[in-house]
């Protein structure tokens, strides 16, 4: 789960990482009231989960109430790379002396944590990495050992920051490391982390991606989730409510498969035989009648869908369970498009026998993945 900047700042504050005083606002009047109470100058920042906000005019400084009203009016409702701005974060403007970059993530090749620190923050760090890799201090941290104070100090010392910033940065990176590990984040990134003209080091931005698998031990994350869902498309919203792994696309072949790998492969195969997928939908392991019914319900809301391809290979998911689910689904959902079904693997014979009793021009069985994809694409194209 990717957090908005304001959520990231709230998250950082829990780990005692300094962020500018600020709050969220949803209307122009709210922005002005908030800015008046914070004191000018303020920065008004669009809350969207996409880069390039500044260039798009989504970040503005206001020196008085009139300017705050003007900028808030422009920013609220604007679209940045297709993301509509529903909220802004308003904070006291900072007097910036220097801009740095710091982050922690997992290095999947090394199977250890990767810390990156640079004296050249504030701009696209990938550009810095490309043009001047020496400007980024990289550190690998063994999760068993953690980030010790000595290691943190040596790492910061090597990054060539302003000497005034060093002690505070050593403390900040250790807090950020805890926000990464204890907080169960996949990624924590501050760009820029600034040294202010009055000599303070703090986070001016916050990029945090939380590990969904750890949600069970973080009930406090529930507050973040509500906002994130509202950002997606309608089909995805419904799918999320029903607990399905669904991604909406714009083709005409609805896809239901079990396992992320098989679902991706089904999309690829549909494309290869000349069709296009309307969605990615992984019903995962242990899918039962309820899950299949939910999956069909979600796909049924998509007006582009002309045919639904169900591709099941039984391992965790048993073929007879899926077949019963399909039979239930047909009863429960008024399907707008025919089904092409391919079932193999565990209990596939039983599954096919169940489907056999319900076969028609609306419920079609195919033997291989390739032939099922061909059949589905032919139907989608009206052949």
């Amino acid at each position, binding site marked *: 789960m990717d957090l908005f900047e304001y959520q990231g700042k709230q998250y950082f504050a829990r780990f005692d990482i300094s962020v500018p005083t600020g709050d969220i606002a949803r209307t122009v009047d709210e922005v002005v009231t908030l800015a008046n109470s914070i004191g000018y100058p303020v920065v008004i920042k669009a809350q969207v989960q996409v880069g390039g906000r500044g260039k798009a005019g989504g970040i503005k400084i206001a020196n008085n109430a009139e300017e705050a009203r003007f900028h808030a009016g422009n920013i609220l409702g604007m679209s940045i790379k297709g993301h509509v701005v529903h909220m802004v974060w308003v904070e006291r403007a900072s007097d910036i002396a220097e801009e740095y970059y710091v982050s922690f993530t*997992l290095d*999947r*090749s090394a*199977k*250890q*944590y990767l810390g990156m620190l640079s004296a050249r923050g504030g701009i696209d760090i*990938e550009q810095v990495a490309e043009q001047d890799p020496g400007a980024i201090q990289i550190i690998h941290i*063994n*999760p*068993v050992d953690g980030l010790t104070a000595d290691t943190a100090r040596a790492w910061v010392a090597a990054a060539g920051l302003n000497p005034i910033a060093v002690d505070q940065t050593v403390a900040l990176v250790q807090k950020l490391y805890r926000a990464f*590990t204890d907080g*169960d984040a*996949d990624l924590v990134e501050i760009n820029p982390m600034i040294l202010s003209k009055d000599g303070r080091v703090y986070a001016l931005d916050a990029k945090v991606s939380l*590990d*969904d*698998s*750890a949600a*069970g*031990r973080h009930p406090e994350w529930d507050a973040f989730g509500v906002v994130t869902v509202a950002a997606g498309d309608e089909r995805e919203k419904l799918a999320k409510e029903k607990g399905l*792994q669904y*991604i909406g*696309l714009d083709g005409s072949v609805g896809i239901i*498969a*079990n*396992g*992320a*790998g*098989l*679902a*991706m*492969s089904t*999309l*690829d*195969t*549909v*494309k*290869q035989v000349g069709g296009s*997928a309307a969605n*990615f939908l*992984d019903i*995962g*392991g*242990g899918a039962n009648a309820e899950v299949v019914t939910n999956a069909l319900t979600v796909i049924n809301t998509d007006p582009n869908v002309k045919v639904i391809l169900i591709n099941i*290979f*039984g*391992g*965790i998911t048993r073929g007879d369970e899926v077949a019963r689910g399909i039979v239930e689904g047909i009863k429960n959902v008024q399907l707008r498009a025919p089904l092409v079904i391919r079932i*193999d*693997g*565990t209990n*596939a014979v039983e599954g096919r026998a169940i489907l056999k009793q319900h076969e028609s021009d609306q419920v079609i069985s195919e033997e*291989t*993945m*390739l032939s099922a994809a061909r059949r589905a694409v032919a139907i989608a194209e009206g052949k």
Partner: protein
Amino acid sequence: MAIFVDQNTKVVVQGLTGSQGRFYGLRNRAYGTQVVAGTNPKKAGTDVEGIPVYASVADAVSEAGANTTFIIVPSAFAADAIMEAAEGGVGFIVCVTEHIPMHDQARVYNLLQRDFPNTRLLGPNCAGIISPGKCNIGFNPPEVAKEGSIGIVSRSGTLAYQSTYELTRKGLGQSSVVGIGGDPVPGTSFIDCLQAFEADPETKGVIMIGEIGGTQEEEAADYIKANMTKPVVAYIAGVTAPAGRKMGHAGAIVTGNKGTAAGKMKALEAAGAVVAQNPTQLGDLMEQALKG
């Protein structure tokens, strides 16, 4: 021969007394796998259809001779279960549990590296492993497998079953089918499996099934180029995956040009592997590759 598990593998099931553990433990035993024990501290002394339940993995090792474990417990308990297994003395740990937090995975992997360097972890969030005719641990549907000489290694479980099926339809049996899982910190990598298949005299060729995200396939390509004498037929899922979206597997994340299906396919082709465009082609391509 086969890799990692064979007819001498004696399995303890951590989670045997749960509904999923019972279903798959018994199913694996019905295939002929030596399932010699289960664990549950509260149910020690009981049995599941004749399989004795012990309090710990250590007991299952000393009392029942277990040398391998099958972990099928809820994610909140899985990291501890892996460490219990290593400390209990099994040499091979198969963990199918999904949704283990990334930081738990990273810690466990590095703890094993440091304290139990000879213990192999397969998974987590993997389908398990089958050496047809000898041993099946995990979710692999044995109905589609056939004893033979092709090794399969796959991140995705369903694509492993799918490719097993495509080979069997062509009359090509398998030495071992290994699901390494799609999680961020897999205990066993593509390279580990390629190395084991290369060393296994029974294995004549290898099917490798990757997917978008990460750099494991690219690393495997380097390994294939430098070390593999046996033919490798590869397939990569996710050609049509939209950039920047997660498609279920924690690992299947595409950012920029790194980790794309096209990039992986190119790297594998350049390394001398045959690259299939869809799973249905795998059987034919392997048949041709063996004729070489």
